[in-house]
């Protein structure tokens, strides 16, 4: 399926610009920022391509009309920034947009003057257009938390996007007010929102796309220009499959993803800028690359927890190691809910409207209690659940910490892993940066600071705005904007959070690019055949850090053909992986002519991931169909050609 990803500075491939009867309709659909429910994602994506392209074809018309009236005065500054990418952080619970305004990063506010907006999409029945939906960024209506939790809104899409229905996180999402159905066969989960007392199905990508359209419209109105390029922050633990889904949602919303930045690396970029400015002030423009500072960044939001270490000097921040997992405020909330109401699951399994409402009320109360526990040692919970039951109790901090012990243990493990990966001791760390909503929890603060043996955390960073600010900076840097005062004179050298490799005989995983390798990177390894006279070999690409392929994520597969006839173990198949700065993975593979240094036939170049849904099935199906006939294996170490380290 062609996923449209334009190159920087190119508008769209000319071949795609052929006139299409769908285009006008698609455009009208788009400009009203509403979506028709489409039968399946295949169709949706196909149409999306048209949507995006038609939008660019007619780029000038629908949008400049709105902005022409006021842009006459500052045309020059606008033209310089016409392609400037904005930074968007779509969090599990909150989201925000930031943009480089020529001198600094500015966070956009919605009409309710909020900088951080609740991430959700409300599905409502609208007789005139069939369906209308609006999310947290919409300026028309502001829904209260109670309504969001009534089942009509979909939220937490960041936890659901790109996951199969066998994923424990998807199963854990079943206690949310909207419907999450799983059949446990490794396909996309079924999610549905309550509209007019009917559960109407949708997909996480669609929800995210609707939400992004709203964010985009909001930003376009405020910045009075078209927005096309974005830098989006993602959690460290997102695999490439999830990243593709996010990109796809962006494409549906008419946005081109310039970079997907793991959240801590965005924070690292902001840190690099702050360090450089500090140094410039103290040295009055000296060399600036003098002292290197090592920082540990701990980011924990509602859905994900990330840890990264970075070495910064002279405005360049090198990511040394990253660790992440799906753990966040949502898990803490769930623990508290189950603590308050041990029979939570059985109580809300039937999903009638009253039950959903009382569940929503309980969620609000628990959320509020958790927030207040950040500053108080105990809180009183008083909630009328509406169905005759009232909950009145006191929640102590010690109780809260006991209930969430597993969460804190995972945090601790992540930090230790990250430090070990980057070969750093607690003493080597100069600054500890705590960001994300959950970093306000006293226990987490003391835990992180304790592990890094620090008294105080790094000051000068807003815990909720750091990531989006960093994304906006990256957007400006990667858009080619320079700043005379040097505020944009910085860089984050990203690293791969997960290893990439292929399957070998026996189901083993052989990494070709190790995790925490600086990107861009290109590495190759020689493999050999496992059968006598084997002429074809299957290259099955996985991402992850497990020793066996089952523990890792399948990215895709293709067959290398024209292997010269030879006894097993003698033919040579070269597999090369290349990751560019935009984190695009390409796999090159082909057979070598025996005893020579030439390729036997043209090599294959495959952009990964190539897979869509049901990737859980593919690996099993491959093994079932082909057995080990097309397997590869590694060459023994002494014969392995020199790897350039």
């Amino acid at each position, binding site marked *: 399926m062609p996923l449209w*990803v334009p*190159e*920087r*500075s190119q508008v769209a491939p000319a071949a795609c610009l052929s006139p299409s009867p769908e285009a006008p309709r698609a455009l009208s659909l788009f400009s009203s920022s509403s979506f028709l429910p489409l039968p399946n994602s295949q169709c949706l994506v196909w149409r999306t391509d048209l949507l995006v392209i038609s939008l660019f074809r007619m780029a000038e018309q629908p949008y400049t009309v709105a902005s022409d009236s006021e842009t006459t005065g500052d045309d020059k500054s606008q033209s310089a920034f016409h392609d400037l990418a904005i930074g968007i952080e779509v969090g599990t619970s909150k989201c925000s947009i930031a943009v480089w305004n020529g001198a600094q990063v500015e966070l956009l506010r919605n009409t309710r003057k909020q900088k951080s907006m609740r991430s959700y999409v409300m599905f409502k029945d609208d007789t005139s257009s069939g369906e209308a939906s609006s999310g947290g960024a919409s300026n028309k209506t502001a829904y209260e938390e109670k309504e969001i939790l009534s089942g009509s809104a979909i939220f937490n899409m960041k936890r659901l996007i790109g996951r199969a229905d066998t994923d424990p996180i998807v199963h854990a999402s079943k206690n949310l007010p909207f419907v999450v159905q799983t059949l446990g066969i490794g396909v996309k989960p079924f999610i549905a929102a309550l509209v007019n007392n009917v559960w109407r199905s949708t997909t996480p990508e669609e929800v995210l796309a609707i939400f992004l359209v709203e964010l985009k419209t909001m930003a376009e109105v405020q910045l009075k220009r078209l927005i096309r390029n974005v830098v989006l922050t993602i959690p460290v633990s997102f695999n490439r499959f999830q990243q593709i889904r996010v990109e796809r949602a962006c494409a549906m919303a008419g946005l081109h993803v310039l*970079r997907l930045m793991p959240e801590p690396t965005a924070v690292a970029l902001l840190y690099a800028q702050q360090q450089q400015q500090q140094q410039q002030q103290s040295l009055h423009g000296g060399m600036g*690359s003098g002292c*290197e500072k090592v920082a540990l960044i701990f980011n924990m939001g509602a859905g994900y927890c990330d840890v990264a270490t970075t070495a910064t*000097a*002279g*405005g*360049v921040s*090198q990511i040394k190691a990253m660790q992440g997992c799906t753990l966040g405020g949502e898990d803490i909330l769930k623990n508290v809910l189950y603590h308050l109401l041990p029979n939570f699951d059985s109580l809300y399994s039937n999903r009638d409207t009253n039950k959903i409402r009382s569940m929503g009320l309980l969620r609000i109360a628990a959320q509020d209690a958790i927030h207040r526990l950040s500053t108080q040692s105990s809180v009183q919970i008083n909630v009328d659940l509406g169905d005759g039951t009232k909950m009145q109790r006191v929640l102590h901090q010690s109780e809260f910490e006991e209930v969430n012990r597993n969460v804190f243990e995972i945090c601790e493990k992540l930090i230790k892993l990250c430090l070990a990966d980057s070969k750093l001791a607690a003493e080597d760390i100069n600054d500890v940066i705590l960001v994300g909503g959950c970093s306000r929890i006293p226990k987490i603060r003391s835990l992180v600071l304790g592990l890094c043996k620090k008294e105080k955390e790094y000051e000068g960073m807003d815990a909720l705005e750091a990531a989006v600010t960093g994304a906006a900076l*990256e957007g400006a*840097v*990667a858009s*080619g904007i320079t700043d005379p005062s040097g505020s944009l*004179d*910085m*860089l*984050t*050298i990203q690293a791969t959070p997960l290893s990439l490799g292929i399957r070998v005989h026996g189901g083993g995983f052989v990494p070709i690019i190790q995790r925490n*390798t*600086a*990107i*861009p*990177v*290109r590495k*190759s390894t*020689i493999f050999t055949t496992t059968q006598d006279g084997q002429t074809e070999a299957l290259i099955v690409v996985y991402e992850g850090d497990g020793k066996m392929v089952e523990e890792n994520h399948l990215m895709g597969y293709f067959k290398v053909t024209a292997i010269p006839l030879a006894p097993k173990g003698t033919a040579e198949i*070269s597999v*090369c992986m*290349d990751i*560019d*700065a*935009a984190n695009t993975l*390409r796999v*090159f593979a*082909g057979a*070598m002519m025996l005893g*020579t*240094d*030439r*390729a036997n036939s*043209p*090599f294959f*170049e495959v952009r990964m991931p190539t897979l869509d849904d049901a990737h859980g099935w593919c690996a099993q199906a491959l093994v079932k169909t082909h057995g080990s006939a097309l397997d590869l294996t590694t060459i023994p170490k002494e014969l392995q*050609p*020199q790897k*350039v*380290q």
Partner: protein
Amino acid sequence: MISCSRNPAAFAFSMPDKPGKVDRTFHFRSTSKTSVYNARSRGAATGIRCCSGKKGREDSVPRNYYELLGVSTDSTPQQIKDAYRSLQKKHHPDIAGQKGHDYTLMLNQAYRTLMREESRSRYDTACGRRSEWSGSNFSGLGYSSWNGPLGSQALFVDEHRCIGCQECVHHASETFEMDEAFGSARVKVQFGDHAKNIEVSVDSCPVNCIHWVDAEELPLLEFLVRPQPKKAYGVFGGGWERPADVFAAAKSLKKQLKEQEEKKHNRDHKGDAEIEPETPAQTKARYHAGMKLQFQELLQMFGRLGEFFVAEESKEK
């Protein structure tokens, strides 16, 4: 979209480990539209090769990691780090766009190799670019000869600082000589003149570059102060060079030699432990050999006893 498409010349570094071993780094030859995964090269142990597209070979292509980073071969990790960062700032695709991809690839590779001591020394050895002051050609013998017995103190001229005034040669011509090529004085014969003359010449040096040093240190210092022919690599092409501070260089080289010695010692020691257990056949052979040796001794003893008795008998006769 294609990594190499905008860049006419795509390069790949290769690093042979041992001469003669197969070297299989892949080279991407870029054509106008797609990068074709082209070929690998075997055999020849040159450090770097370059495949270029239609434009032909470019002269500006850096030929090794040091040149790529613009640092000297004896640079410290900190210097490498700084160079890497400043180059990244210029060439990273975030800043330079997609055309910086290939260059950044090489930068990352060079940085990875040079930042780890182990891989750096492997790279240096493989490319025959061990830094000159590594002591690889240090014989352990000094340059100057001794007049009379070796003393605990010796004279040493820091040739780097010598201005070539010839004062010392004038006062003690048997001890000092001029190196016409480098225009500096040096010690020819230790204590070649009277102690008084030597003292005068030391005092007469206008830049105080004649030092009394430990005789033990002398060979190392004399080795280091001799300008070494510099191998040509890129901008640091050819010529002669010597350390700016010979005493510091001696100190570090001494440490390095000691470390090498220790490493060697450790390796030897480890080697002993790793001896394979002998096979039964070997045990048997050893046993037989031992028996034979013992018998030989006995036989010799008998032989000697026999001779003794023969001699006694002849005496008695």
